[in-house]
């Protein structure tokens, strides 16, 4: 059985980059899931904190994190309400299908 293909045309990435410039920014992504959207912008960001309450999804995201992004992308199992932020504020927050 062939897997379902989600957005092979990459319209989501196009729409995201039309709206935001991630270059050099400190980004907080809320509802990152397994990192599906994270991989589409993280290479441009200075630092990314991506959170999601689903531990299985975060586990998968950590495993699939490309080597080039390790050290620049952190994943945390948490809801936004319980999130303990780092001292420095973020330049950009991304609500990823999550509000």
């Amino acid at each position, binding site marked *: *059985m*062939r*897997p*379902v*293909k*989600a*957005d*092979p*045309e990459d*319209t*989501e990435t*196009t*729409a*995201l980059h*039309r*709206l*935001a410039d991630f270059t050099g920014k400190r980004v*907080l992504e*809320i509802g990152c899931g397994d990192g599906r*959207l994270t991989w589409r912008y993280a290479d441009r960001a200075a630092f990314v904190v991506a959170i999601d309450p689903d531990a299985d999804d975060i586990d998968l995201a950590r495993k699939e994190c490309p080597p080039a992004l390790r050290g620049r992308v952190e994943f945390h199992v948490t809801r*936004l*309400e319980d*999130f303990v*932020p780092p001292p420095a*504020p*973020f*330049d*950009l*927050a*991304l*609500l*990823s*299908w*999550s*509000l």
Partner: protein
Amino acid sequence: MVHALEKLHALLKPAGELIDIHPTTEPASIGVRLRAREFGAGWINEIDDYVEYQWADEALDRAVASGWFALEKRATFEFVWHAASLAELRAYLAEEWRDAVIDDLTAMRIEDALKSPERDKELIVREKIGVARYRRSDSRSV
């Protein structure tokens, strides 16, 4: 949701950006493509009728009205899924979109269309997604 936006306001730098991506309240359509022709088969409904997306929009509108954020740009795009069969689509939805419902009539239309001897065929789900950019504002009403 309003509390989440208040927390995000505090986590952002002054004039920081908030990007929101979420589906619109419009149900996703399901079509069957047979070679170059696509037939509408129905829609994917949600158990709660997409109400959480309406609540999200209302929360963002309130955050703007309260002066926490200013809306700068809003757009929509079409997110498309491709599946080879109804069983495959249902298995995917059970995993990734748990409150999605394909009603019996839509399922019957899909199965009928897929009985075609045409070998180049698939299911196409199209969902309209809203995307918006907001800027942190410090003109909060007290």
